[in-house]
């Protein structure tokens, strides 16, 4: 079993640089969000917006929440809930579409 230390060697990524990335992606998101559907179809726009939001979530989780450097057990504790979330949303959407 992996040994968990109380405070693993404190690593400081460049927090300011990550913040700049977060702001740049947010600005791009707002820009994409304003593009009319006649120019950018929803089928392209929504996956693009979700990808950018996903990139921001990963940046915060990996570097600000230190998942990249911390014990994998913490990551595991979080990951178990994700399949349940996806299943929950799929079930609701499928139920709605079939209604």
């Amino acid at each position, binding site marked *: 079993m992996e040994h968990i230390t109380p405070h693993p060697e404190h690593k400081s990524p460049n927090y300011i640089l990550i913040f700049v990335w977060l702001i740049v992606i947010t600005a791009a998101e707002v820009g994409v969000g304003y593009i009319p559907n006649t120019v950018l179809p929803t089928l392209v726009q*929504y996956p693009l917006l979700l990808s950018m939001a996903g990139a921001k979530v990963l940046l915060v989780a990996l570097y600000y929440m230190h998942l990249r450097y911390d014990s994998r057990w913490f990551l595991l504790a979080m990951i178990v809930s994700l399949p349940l979330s996806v299943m*929950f949303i799929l079930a609701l959407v499928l139920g709605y579409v079939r209604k």
Partner: protein
Amino acid sequence: MTEMTHETHEEHIHLPENSFWPLVLGGGMFVLLFGMALRDYRMFVAPAGLLILGVGLGGWITSIVGEKVPSITPVIAGKMAMWVFLASEVLFFTGLIASFLLLRAEAAPGVDHALVASIPLVSINTFILLTSSLTVVMSHDAAARNLQGRLKVLLFLTILLGTTFVSLQGYEYNNLYHEGLSWTGNGYGTAFFTLTGTHGLHVIIGIIWCAVVLIRALQGGFNAKNYSGVEIFGLYWHFVDIVWILLFTLVYLMNTSAGLPVK
């Protein structure tokens, strides 16, 4: 010799004193929710519950802040407990988000122009919350490097940014209300205010928590060897930030029925 000291330190688990404040807080929560469910006396019972809840929370926080030990929870257990709690929060917000998307598809097909008009204000609010995540992670870094002054300033800035976020959200709610979107108007309005309001409540809880961490920092409760209080608070705050990142995209930017067939 160093190893022995380290082991002795890890074996000692400090537990907080018995307290009746959690009971008061729980009672207040019960009265608040019970009052909200009432038809006739809601305006009297619910505020009373809120008052009891506030007294319970204040009493509990005061008793914790008064502790003269540097940390009340073993670091690993505390962090793991927070991650498990956050996993449960993922499921909680999943339910709220899914309900919102479905109710929007049913009740408000097409683009909601009131929400589109909110995007500039909400973008500023997103910037504010992202900045607060930066101040929190830098306060964690400051604690790990024993930079006491920087730690306190950054925690104070976090409180300031969190309060600004909540204030702007209140301003946005007021605008939306005047545009005709209300909590009780239809299922869409209920889902919107419940989803974003629950997130706002999490920010308010985070502000209170940050204030407690700041008071402990002012009392010299953190140093380079013990900063778990800052770290665990940081995990919560960043999670609240992540939820907002998703809400900003799903609620405001993807502002139609999300491709679902309109019934």
